[in-house]
Structure formats: C-alpha cells, structure tokens
C-alpha cells in the first residue's frame, strides 16, 4: 500500500506575549490509504493542533503535510473535518447542512437529481434518513454528530479528520456511533485520523494508535499497531487477550506520561493555544484515570 498522507517533521509554534510557545516538535507520521489512525494523549498535548495542521486550518512553523504528493497549504474538502461539537449550521435542516457541502464540492460535476440522491445516500449511511428535515436544535447530540459525519463523508474526502467526534456523547450513544463508524469504514474504506481520549475507542477502531507525549513540544511517543481481525465486535473483544494487551499498553503509556511528564511545565505553557474544550477534557481525563 502506498503512503497517502505524509505528515513530515512538523513543528508548531504559537506566538505569545512571552515569546513563542512550542506546541509540537518534530511530529512525523506516514498514513496509508484506507488506514484508521487514532491520536491519543493527555489534554493539551497538541493532538488537535496536529489535526488542524493536516486540515490546513493552522500552518506548521516547520515541516509540512503532503497529501497525494501535494503540499497542504489551506483547508479544503478533500480533508473533511468532523468537529467535536458537530458544528452544524443551526438554521439549516440536516438535509440542508449536507447539501451546503455537496453543492460546494459537486456543484459542477453532478446534476441536481444526482446531488439530491447523494445527499440522501449519505444521510442514510449514518441512519438519519428519518430526520432529514429537522434542524440541529430538534435532534439529539448523537444524531447531530451523525449528520456532521454525513456532511464530512458527502465531501468524499481523501482523508477524514475527526476531532474527538464522540467525546461529548453519553457512553451508550458513543458505543452505537463507534459501531456505525466501523460499518461505514468497512464499506467505504476511508482513510481516517481520529483524536480520542478514550482508550477502548482507540483500540476498537484503529489500525494504528499514535500515542503523543505531553506538551509543550509534544511529539509522537509510541505507535501501536492493532492487529485485530475486522470486523471487530466489542463484546467478543472483551475476552480477547490480544485486545486487553493493546488496551493495557496504551493505558500504561498514558499513565506513565501523566505521572512523569517529559518536560517540566513552565508557567508560559499554561495558556494552551490548542482549541480543546476544557470541560470534555476534564471528564475524559477522569475516565482514563478510572480505567487505569
């Protein structure tokens, strides 16, 4: 398999009043077509920053991102993002939200009827056909996230970027969404980068788990290849020794990094320019600790 996405030796610095703050140092990762990669690490370690650089929303200070042999310089629909808090336009219905993306990407290449079909197809994929004409305010958090995923999928991205897509959902809905995502990925063979705090989620979904060290100057600590047969079923995996080994490895990494940070945290590093939501982080961190 060939390398689709090359995240090549990225450094990311943010200017602060007290001089530049180095969020990432030398993050280097090659991702293949059809691979599902999760980024896991503690809050503020710069996972979101990596994703934003790949999305083109941030420009790396050094190094760069190469997708299909072309350097990424700006955001674009071939790197669709599923945001943590769904980011649907609240004044549009589920259908119209997906339509906005489809019109923008396929407005010239597809006819009206084809676009309509394509929108409906994508909403069906995430099991949202029944609520196509509802606005985000009228549907649950899980449903909103489904529409967000449908919108991203409808752009037919080369890489699907997911920023803690299920972080804000309750455990049951989250499990449901994970199953849906696995189904869709099996069908479409998308290349996915997903940020998560959830160890089980990472092991269940990923081909590779990229574990990041604590910031500032965060980088890739370890990469774990998850060689579990697909399709994976969460109930069967619960008793699978290999699954539990993987889980333990990730937990161990997180726990060690948590108690012994690589670099002492300086005062200036306290203001995280990273766009993570504090509340969700807190809840997730507790979960990781509980599991440990």
């Amino acid at each position: 398999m060939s390398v689709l996405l090359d995240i090549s030796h990225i450094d990311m610095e943010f200017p602060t009043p007290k001089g530049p703050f180095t969020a990432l140092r030398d993050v280097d990762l090659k991702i293949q077509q059809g691979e599902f990669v999760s980024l896991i690490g503690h809050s503020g370690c710069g996972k979101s920053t990596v994703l934003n650089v790949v999305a083109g929303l941030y420009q790396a200070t050094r190094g760069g991102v190469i997708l299909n042999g072309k350097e990424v310089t700006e955001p674009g629909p071939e790197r669709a993002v599923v945001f943590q808090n769904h980011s649907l336009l609240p004044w549009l219905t589920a259908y119209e939200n997906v339509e906005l993306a489809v019109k923008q990407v396929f407005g010239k290449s597809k006819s009206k009827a084809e676009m309509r079909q394509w929108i409906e197809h994508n909403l069906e994929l995430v099991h949202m056909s029944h609520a196509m004409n509802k606005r985000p305010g009228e549907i649950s958090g899980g449903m909103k996230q489904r529409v967000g995923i449908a919108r991203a999928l409808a752009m037919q991205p080369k890489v699907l970027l997911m920023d803690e897509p299920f972080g804000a959902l309750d455990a049951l809905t989250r499990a449901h969404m994970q199953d849906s995502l696995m189904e869709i990925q099996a069908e479409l063979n998308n290349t996915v980068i997903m940020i998560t705090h959830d160890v089980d989620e990472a092991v269940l979904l990923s081909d590779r788990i990229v574990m990041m060290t604590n910031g500032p100057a965060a980088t890739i600590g370890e990469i774990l290849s998850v060689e579990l047969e697909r399709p994976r079923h969460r109930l069967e995996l619960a008793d699978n020794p290999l699954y539990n080994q993987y889980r333990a490895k990730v937990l161990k990494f997180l726990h060690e990094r948590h108690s012994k940070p690589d670099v002492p945290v300086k005062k200036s590093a306290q203001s995280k320019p990273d766009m993570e939501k504090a509340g969700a982080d807190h809840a997730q961190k507790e979960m990781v600790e509980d599991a440990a």
Partner: protein
Amino acid sequence: MNTTSVNAGKLYGFRLPQLDSGLVGSAIRLVALPLVGILAFLLLWSVTAQNIDTSLGKFPGPAAVLEQFDALYSEHQRSREKEQAFYERQEERNAKRVAEDPSYEPRIRAYTGKETFIDQIVTSLVTVMSGFLLAVVIAVPLGIATGLSKTLNSAVNPIVQIFKPVSPLAWLPLVTMVVSALYTTPDPIVAKSFLNSMITVTLCCLWPMVINTAVGVAGIDSDLVNVSKVLRLPALRHVQKIVLPASVPMIFTGMRLSLGVAWMVLIAAEMLAQNPGLGKFVWDEFQNGSSDSLARIMAAVLVIGFIGFLLDRGMLAMQKLVSWDNSAAQ
C-alpha cells in the same frame, strides 16, 4: 451542575406566586391582570387629574381625552370632505373654462388645508420607517464588514464610539443647514422638513445597528467559520450562507433597539424643528393654548406610546420569523 441547581433553588425561593396552572390561570394572566392594571391606572389618573389646576383649566382626565379622540377624528373627516369638495370645485371650473376656450390648459392646485391628527400620525410613521430603512441599508453592510475585518474595525470603532452617545437632536441644526444647502432642486420630490427628520432618525439608528451587527458577526462560533474554510466557500457565499444567518439575531436586536429610540427621537425632533408629524401636533397644541389643548396632547401621548409599542411588537414578530435562534427574541 451543582451551582446551577443551587441557583435555581435560590431563584425559586424568590419567585412570586405564579398562576401557571391550566387554561384558567393563563386566561387570568393574559387578560384579567392587564385589565386590572389598566383600570387602576385610569382610576388613579382621573382622581389625580381632578386635583390639578393649570392655566388652561383642569388637567384632562380619561373622559376628556376620549372626547378629544372623537373630536380629532371628526376633524379629520371634515377636512377630507373639504379637500374632496375643493378638488371637485376645481374640476368643475376647469371643465367650464375648457368648454369656453378649448386652448385653455387646465391646472390642478393642491389642497393646502391644515394637516389633521391622522395626517400627522401618517407623516411620523413614514418618516421613522424611511429613516430606519436608510440606516439598515448603511449599517448592516458596514457592521458585517467591520465584524469580519479586525483592521477595518480598529479604524471604524473610534468614530462609532464617539458618535454613539451623541443625542441625534444635536445633529438636527447641522442636518437642517446641510439639507437646505445641498437639496436645492426646483421641483423637490420630498419636502426638506421630511429629509431633516428622516436623516435625524437615520443618525440615531445607525450606531446601535453598526455595533450590534459587528458584535454579532465577530462573535460567530469559530467552528462554523472553520466549516466554511474546509468547504472553501467563496467570500460572498460565506457571508450569505454563514455570516448573515449566524448574526441575524444580533442584527435584529440592534434594529429593535434603534427603532424604539428613533421613534422617541423623531417626536422630539419634530417638536424642535416644527417639522410635520406628531411632534409638531403636540407643539402646535401647546402653543395654541385652548381649553382642549391638554386633552389633545394627552391623546397624542397615548397614540405615540401605542405606536411605539406596535413598532416594537412588529420588529419582534419579524425577528421571530427570520431568526433561527428564538431565545434572542424576548
């Protein structure tokens, strides 16, 4: 979680007894209680009015004002009849002259009777709406532009901040002079006085609308902006699809604020500049000083209040119609 429930409990403790159960409760709340309030006010008014002696007689009570409403309306009808008769007479005379001399070109002279109360209401309403709409046309694009561009905002903000607290009435003399200097067509479409009042209203509406629009635009959820970036929406489509709908609640809040203030300012401007409208009516009655004057002014006060209320309700209804976020419309 904890703090909210504590706060809710605190709030609940301070709450007045509520009539929130069932149809009867809501009927009482929506109809009976307002009626009680109005009746109490009328009673207080008529009792107090009887005890105030002015140089123009007793202060008018509700009955006197009601009588004047009636008088004002019949005056209006009489004036309309007169106007019609005036035009009919002209037509008759013209027809006669044309019959006598076919080369005569008939001319129609406009009726120049005094504006009635109803005419003044219409004038004020037209003025406030035109000034308001002109302000919308200027302020909304300007607000969007300043909200989107920090550079432009830094440049425009000081000016807006300085002009915002200025009473539009202070502009009035300047506006009057500028209009009479620049608006010198021999065949004017609208009267100078109308322009003066209208521009004063515009100046009054402009600033709150610019500020609210800019704040609304600048405060758009950064995730929504990112969605637009990922989709690579062109600038105009970004404004149309993301910026405008996202800031509609704030834009309308600004509009409602401005329209309310504009209505108050217009009346004052009309009094000050003797421009046609309800303000002029009030001033004329005050200068007139007849025994009915106070009752007629009081009638105008009630009408001004009622129209202001209707304007606000109208804006609210429109806000609810176009806005996705109805929590802002309260």
